[in-house]
């Protein structure tokens, strides 16, 4: 994670050129059954979300959203300028023809009790290019599995949207199209928040230093986005 200094408040942008989900740390293993985002989870919901996000990320999501019920992340808007900067990071290759797959801006906010936390600020990810489609769409054998995965992703996104208190419909564009790994990661990240010191971004926040993670895909399942 690379801190990007900002005039108004110093926040951090999480950048990655990894394609897959980076599992988050579990700060405390609190198995809370209900109350996630104001909605009620049934076992089927939980299983599906855990399958798509990964168990570690799912556990973190449950524990963090219950414990941070003061919801310090309300009412924060970001400006067009920020979004353009994030888009540039993923869309415009630099001199070495390198660009990031996604960029997330985690906004610092403070709860009523005075605790600091990082919440979703804004994010952008790269559009999938031609020829970058996954193996599954070309290989007939894998296509059914891929379709199932796609359906599950869309259901999970709808569930997260609803269960985190949204009454408006999670509308249709995704119904027509694929959700790539990177996009799934970006969209799911919107529901995460990191108290200072917790999770990858939270620890980066607490330390005030750059964190550079490499070879995450190769490291074992215990390796998560934090140090």
């Amino acid at each position, binding site marked *: 994670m690379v801190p990007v200094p900002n005039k108004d408040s110093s926040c951090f942008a999480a950048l990655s050129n990894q394609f897959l989900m980076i599992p988050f740390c579990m700060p405390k293993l609190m198995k809370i059954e209900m109350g996630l985002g*104001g*909605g009620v989870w049934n076992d089927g919901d939980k299983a599906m979300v855990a399958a798509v996000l990964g168990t570690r990320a799912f556990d973190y999501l449950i524990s963090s959203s219950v414990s941070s019920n003061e*919801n310090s992340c*309300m009412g*924060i808007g970001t400006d067009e300028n920020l979004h353009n900067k994030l888009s540039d990071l993923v869309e415009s290759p630099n001199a070495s023809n390198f660009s990031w797959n996604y960029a997330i801006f985690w906004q610092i906010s403070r709860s009523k009790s005075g605790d600091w936390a990082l919440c979703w600020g804004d994010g952008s990810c790269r*559009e999938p290019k031609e020829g970058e489609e996954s193996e599954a769409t070309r290989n007939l054998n894998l296509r059914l599995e891929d379709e199932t995965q796609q359906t599950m992703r869309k259901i999970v996104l709808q569930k997260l949207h609803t269960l*985190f*208190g949204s*009454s408006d419909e999670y509308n249709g564009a995704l119904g027509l199209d694929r959700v790539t790994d990177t996009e799934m990661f970006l*969209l799911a990240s919107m529901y995460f928040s990191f108290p200072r010191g917790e999770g990858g971004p939270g620890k980066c926040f607490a330390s005030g230093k750059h964190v550079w993670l490499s070879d995450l895909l190769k490291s074992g399942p215990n390796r998560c986005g934090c140090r």
Partner: protein
Amino acid sequence: MSKIKPQVLKSVISSGSVLLNHHHGSETPMASRKSFSVPSSPKADQIPFPSLPVYIPTGTSVSSFMPAPPAAAAASEKLEETTTPLTIFYHGTVSVFDVPRDKAESILKLALEGNSAKAAESALAVDSKLVLHSSDQQQLLDPLDGDLPIARRKSLQRFLEKRKERLNSVSPFGCDA
């Protein structure tokens, strides 16, 4: 103005309250605590609930009982639940409300009291939480509703719009949103 036939009305009621009403097919289910008295000649003019939402049913069998425009309230209850469905058939439409028993009784009292100003007042004071379809229930009770993180919503909207644009530009037919 036609009135609903009393025997038709009672057959509707008795079919609806089969589980609960032990006097199955009885004429006047007034004695039981769990059933409600129903006017045998409803006054179609009196409308105690002018603002309640109604939805038009598609082909319910009940509508065949109903010559227009009758007003009738049929209470159908399930055992052992604190709120139970109250079904109101009115003017060719059907509404279902989940109500506790005392509220259901007050609603029926209002229907019987008719057009008095007092009845209209207390009808408006009826708890708006009665007006629920099951899918809405969670949103009404959800304290976060309306308090959403703005950043998340904006990001999501932007993402979906970008996606729509991309799909539209790719489509050879160039359909508009």
